[in-house]
C-alpha cells in the first residue's frame, strides 16, 4: 500500500517504489495525459509529472502555491490542459478559468472541461484581459505560462483586473521566448525587475527560482501585489 503524505492542500506525495507528486482525481477512472492512477484507501490519486508541468515543478521547488479547496484560479496559457487538470483537482470546490489562444490546444481542453465542472475554458488572447472581463471573477491565484516576449506585462494587466488584494501571482518565465540568444540569467533579472517596477500594479517578489532540472531555461516566480 503506497504511503500518502500531504504537501499542502490538495497536493500529495505518494511513495510507491519511488516518490510521486500527485493530486486527488476529481474525475475518477479517467486519465488525462497518460499519467498513473493510484488508488489508496478508496481515494484515487493521479501522479503529476513535474517535467511536463511547470506548476508541478514549482511545487517540488518549494513554492508555496497556497491553493485551497475553494480557491479561484485564472490560468493563462492553458494549452491542452495537462496542468489545468491538476489545478482542477486541487481546487475541487473552486474554479479554474483557463485561457488559451490556440484552437488546436483548445480542442483538447474542451474535452477536459466538459468532464470537469470547475474548468471554465476561454479562448482569447491572454494579453487582452478586457476580452474576458465579462466572464472572470476576482481570483486568488493567477498562474501564467505563456510563451510570449511580454510575459511580465501580460501578468500585470491581468493582475490589475482580476487578482484579489491578497492573491498571488505564479509565473513561469521562459527565457527563450523573450530573447532566443541572450543569457537566460540576464533575461530573468530583467523580467523580475519589470515585474517589480515597470507596470501598474507593481509586484513584490516572494520567491524566484529556476525550474531545473525539470525545465531548462525557465524561471518560476511567486509574487503578490505590493
Amino acid at each position, binding site marked *: 500500500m503506497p504511503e500518502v503524505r500531504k504537501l499542502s492542500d490538495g497536493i500529495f506525495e505518494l511513495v510507491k517504489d519511488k516518490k510521486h507528486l500527485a493530486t486527488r482525481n476529481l474525475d475518477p477512472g479517467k486519465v488525462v495525459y497518460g499519467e498513473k492512477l493510484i488508488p489508496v484507501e478508496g481515494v484515487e490519486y493521479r501522479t503529476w509529472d513535474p517535467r511536463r508541468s511547470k506548476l508541478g515543478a514549482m511545487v517540488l521547488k518549494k513554492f508555496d502555491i497556497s491553493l485551497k479547496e475553494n480557491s479561484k484560479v485564472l490560468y493563462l496559457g492553458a494549452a491542452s490542459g495537462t496542468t489545468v487538470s491538476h489545478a482542477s483537482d486541487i481546487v475541487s470546490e473552486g*474554479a479554474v478559468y483557463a485561457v488559451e489562444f490556440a*484552437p488546436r490546444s*483548445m*480542442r483538447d*481542453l*474542451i474535452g477536459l*472541461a*466538459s468532464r470537469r*465542472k*470547475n*474548468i*471554465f*475554458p*476561454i*479562448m*482569447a488572447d491572454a494579453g487582452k484581459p*478586457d*476580452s*474576458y*472581463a*465579462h*466572464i*472572470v*471573477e*476576482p481570483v486568488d491565484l493567477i498562474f501564467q505560462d505563456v510563451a510570449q516576449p511580454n510575459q511580465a506585462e501580460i501578468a500585470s494587466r491581468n493582475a*490589475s*483586473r*482580476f487578482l*484579489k488584494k491578497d492573491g498571488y501571482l505564479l509565473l513561469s518565465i521562459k527565457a527563450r521566448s523573450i530573447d*532566443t*540568444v*541572450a*543569457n537566460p540569467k540576464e533575461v530573468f533579472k530583467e523580467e523580475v525587475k519589470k515585474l517589480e517596477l515597470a507596470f501598474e500594479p507593481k509586484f513584490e517578489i516572494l520567491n524566484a527560482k529556476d525550474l531545473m532540472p525539470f525545465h531548462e531555461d525557465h524561471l518560476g516566480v511567486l509574487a503578490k501585489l505590493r
Partner: protein
Amino acid sequence: MKVTTWFGVLDIGRTGEILESDLFSKDVRELAHRSLVLKENRQGLPPAGFDLKDAALESRFIDSSAEYYSLLHEVTLEAVKIQVSGALTPDQRIIQAVEALDDLNETTNSLSERLFEWYGGYFPESGLIGEALAIFIAKYGSRENIGSDNPLYSKARGSMGAQLEAADEILLKGFAENVCSLYERKRQIEVYIENSMESVAPNLNLIAGPMLGARLISISGSLEKLAAFPSSTIQVIGASKALFKHLRSRAPSPKHGIIYSNPLINTAPWWIRGKIARALAAKLSLAARIDFYSGTKDSSLVEKLDTKVRQIRASNPKPPQKKQESGPKSKKNRRK
C-alpha cells in the same frame, strides 16, 4: 455606471449597489453567442475587481452560487466550441494538406525503396523504379506473367531473379497496390493544394507557385501571420537553424530558406542568389498582404519582380573578387 457581464447589463451605483439590471435569458446557446460578441466589444467593462458572481446573485439572475458556476460552465464551453468550429479557415486546410503531402512523400519513398529491394530479388533486370515499378508489380506480379508483346519480355525470360512463389506474389502484389495508391493520393493532394491556393492566396500562388506558397503558409502558421512577417523573415523561413547559428555566433546569415525552391533563385548563379532572394521575399510579403487583406489578384507584382531580377542579373554579370581572408575573430563576448 453601466456594466456588461455575460449574464446581463447592470447599472451600478457609486457604492457598488445594483440600481437596475437588464438580464439576459438563461438560454445557453444565446448566452454563449452574446459572450462572443462581448469579447470583441469593449464597452461597459466591469471595473477591476468586480465580483460577477455576487452581482448575479444580487440581481437575482440565479439563486445560488452552485447554479452560477454550472450555468457559466455550460456557457463558456458552448462559446469555445463555437470558436473552435470557426477556426478551421481555408488556409488551415491548406496547411493540413501540405503537411500530409510531406508525410506522404516520406512514406511513399521509403515504401517504394522497400518494394524495389524486395522485388529486385525476383526480377533485377526490370530497370523500373518508383511508381512505374509499383504499377508493373501490381499488374503482373511474377515476371512469368508478362506477355510477349511487352518490351520487358526478353529481359524477363533471361532474368537471373529467383522464382516468385505464389504466397510471395500475393504479398508483393498487395504491397505494390498500396504503393500505387499512395502515389495516386499524392497527386490528388497536389491538385487540391493548387486549387485552394488559387482561391485563398492568388497572388502568393502567382509569385511562389502553389507548393512553395502553401509551405510558407504552413511554416508561418496561417496566412495572417505570413502577411504580418517582414520580408526579411520570409526570406529565411525554413532556415531557422542557420539563422540562429548566425545570431548566436559569427556564422554567416542564411541567404534563403525554403524560397530557394523557387526557380528564380535556384537557377541563378551563386553570387546573385542572395540579392534575388531579397527581391523575391519582398514581393512575396506584398503578395501575402494583398491576399490576406484584399484578395484581389494583381499581376503587376510578377512583372515588377521580373524587372527587378533582370536588373540584378544585368548589374552583376560576373562573380565578385574574393576578399582577403581576415582570420577568425574573437568570440569573447558571445554565448556559445
